C-alpha cells in the first residue's frame, strides 16, 4: 500500500532522513521505533509533504505522491495524526471532528461520527466544549477520532502515547488495534513506547540517525536482544509498578 524508496529530506542544511526505504502492506500495523531525534517524525512529515522530499519516492496505492501538496493527501485516503495532537484549541470538539471530514462527502458524516464516538464514548458528552479545554488524554482521542473522520485507508500515527498517563496509554493502544481490525485501516505507527507498540504491530522498523537499521515482525523485534537493550531494558521506561 505504501512504498518508500531511498527517501531523503531535512531542514535547512541538516539532512535528517538519509535514504529511508520501507513498505507497509495493506491491512497491517507497521511500527517505526527509534530514539528521540532519529527522524521518525520527520519521516511522517515528509510523507505529508513538509519538509519536501529531496530525493527518493513515495508511492501510495500505485500512485507517486512524492510531490503531492499536503492538503490533497487526505483526499487520496491518507490521514496523519501528528505528534502533539494538534487539536484546534478554540473550536469545539464537534467542529474539530467536522474539520476531520473537511475534504469528504458530507453524507458520510453522520456514520463516521458514530464510529468515532463508539471508539471514544468519552467525547460524546464534550461535543460542545472547546478542544483546548480537554485533558491530554481526551485530546489524543479527539485527534485520532478526527483523523478517522476522513475514512482513511492509511492512518499515520505519530507518538500517540506521548505525555499520557499509564492508564490512558493502554486505552490508546487498544483503540489502535481495534481500528485496524474493525475498519481494516492500514496503520503506520511511530512510537517511543517501543514495548507496547511492538506488541501490536505486524511489522516493525528501527530507525537510528535517519536510517533504518533493523526490520522484522513485531514479535521478532520484541525478542531481539539489541532492541531490548537499546529501547526497553536499558532505561527505566518500562519499569512497570510491581
Amino acid at each position, binding site marked *: 500500500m505504501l512504498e518508500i524508496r531511498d527517501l531523503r529530506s531535512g531542514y535547512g542544511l541538516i539532512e535528517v532522513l538519509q535514504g529511508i526505504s520501507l513498505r507497509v502492506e495493506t491491512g497491517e500495523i507497521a511500527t517505526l521505533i527509534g530514539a528521540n531525534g532519529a527522524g521518525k517524525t520527520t519521516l511522517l512529515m515528509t510523507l505529508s509533504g513538509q519538509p519536501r522530499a529531496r530525493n527518493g519516492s513515495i508511492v501510495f496505492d500505485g500512485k507517486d505522491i512524492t510531490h503531492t501538496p499536503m492538503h490533497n493527501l487526505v483526499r487520496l485516503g491518507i490521514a496523519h495524526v501528528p505528534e502533539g495532537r494538534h487539536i484546534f484549541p478554540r473550536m469545539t470538539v464537534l467542529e474539530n471532528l467536522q474539520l476531520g471530514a473537511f475534504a469528504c462527502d458530507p453524507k458520510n458524516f453522520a456514520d463516521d461520527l458514530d464510529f468515532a464516538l463508539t471508539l471514544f464514548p468519552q467525547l460524546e458528552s464534550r461535543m460542545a466544549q472547546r478542544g483546548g479545554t480537554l*485533558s491530554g488524554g481526551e485530546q489524543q482521542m479527539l485527534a485520532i477520532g478526527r483523523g478517522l473522520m476522513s475514512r482513511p485507508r492509511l492512518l499515520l500515527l505519530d507518538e500517540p502515547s506521548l505525555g*499520557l498517563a499509564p492508564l490512558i496509554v*493502554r486505552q490508546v493502544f487498544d483503540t489502535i488495534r481495534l481500528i485496524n481490525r474493525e475498519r481494516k485501516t492500514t496503520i503506520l505507527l511511530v512510537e517511543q513506547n517501543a514495548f507496547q507498540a511492538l506488541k501490536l504491530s505486524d511489522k516493525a522498523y528501527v530507525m537510528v540517525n535517519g536510517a533504518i537499521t533493523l526490520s522484522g515482525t513485531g514479535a521478532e523485534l520484541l525478542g531481539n536482544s539489541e532492541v531490548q537493550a537499546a529501547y526497553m531494558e*536499558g532505561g*527505566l521506561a518500562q*519499569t*512497570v509498578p510491581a
Partner: protein
Amino acid sequence: MTQPVLDVSNLSMRFGGLAAIDNLSFTARGDHITAIIGPNGAGKTTVFNCLTGFYRPTGGSVRVTHDNGKQFQLERMAGFEIARKARVLRTFQNIRLFAGMTALENLLVAQHTELMRASWYSVAGLLGLKPYEKATRTAMERARYWLDRVGLTAQANNPAGSLSYGLQRKLEIARAMCANPVFLCLDEPAAGLNPREDQELVEILLELKREHNIAIILIEHDMGVVMHISDHIVVLDHGACIADGTPAEIRANEKVIKAYLGQDDSEEDG
C-alpha cells in the same frame, strides 16, 4: 541550621468557575526529591505555575523557608522575585531555552542578577572596570562547571536551538542551576527522552540532591524515573491530593491505582 522547606497549604486556583487546584496541601523537604504525579489535566503544571509566580493562586499560601530561617510567601511575590529572592527555579514542560543564543549565553543570562550588580548596572561594564571583569570570570567558571556536569562543554558555543532534544532538556536544568536555586521544580524532565537519556537524567538529579543539596520537586509521567528517585510522592487528581507518601506506599495505594496507574500489569506485560 535547618533544612529548607516548601510548604503548600490550602492552595486553590480557579479559572472562571473551574477549580484547577482545590485546597491542596503538601510539604516538600529540602533533603527530598518530591514527585508530583497524576493523570493528565489533574493540575500538576498549574501547581508549578502557582509555585513560581506565573499564576497568582486564588486561595491558600505557599511558604518557602531557607536554611537560614528566612521565610518567603510566594503567593505575594512576582515571578521574577521568586526566582531571585526565594530562589525557587523551574524548567518547563515544553523546554524554554533562549534558542538563538548559545548554550553558554543561556547560562550567563541565568546569572543576570549578580552580573548586573557587578557591572554597576552597566556602568562598570562599559568602562571595563576590575570588579566587573572578576564577576564575569566567576560567572564563566560557574557556567563551565555546569556545562561539564551535563556533558555540554563541546557544544557550549552552539545555539541552544540547534541542540538535540535531550541536550536541550539538560541545558535547561543546567541553566536553572546557574541561577543558584534552593528549590528546583522540574516539569516533566524525562518527557521525550530515550532510555539512555533517562538514565543520565536520573544520575544528574541524584547528584544534585546529594552533592549540591538542591531540593527537587518534579512532575513526571515516567513511573520508572519517579519510583526510582523520589523520596516522597504527591498524587493529584482533579486538582486535589489523593495520596501522599513514599513510593512504596503510593504503589500500593488503591485510589492511585484506580485513578492513574491502572491495574498492575507486570505479569501480563512481562
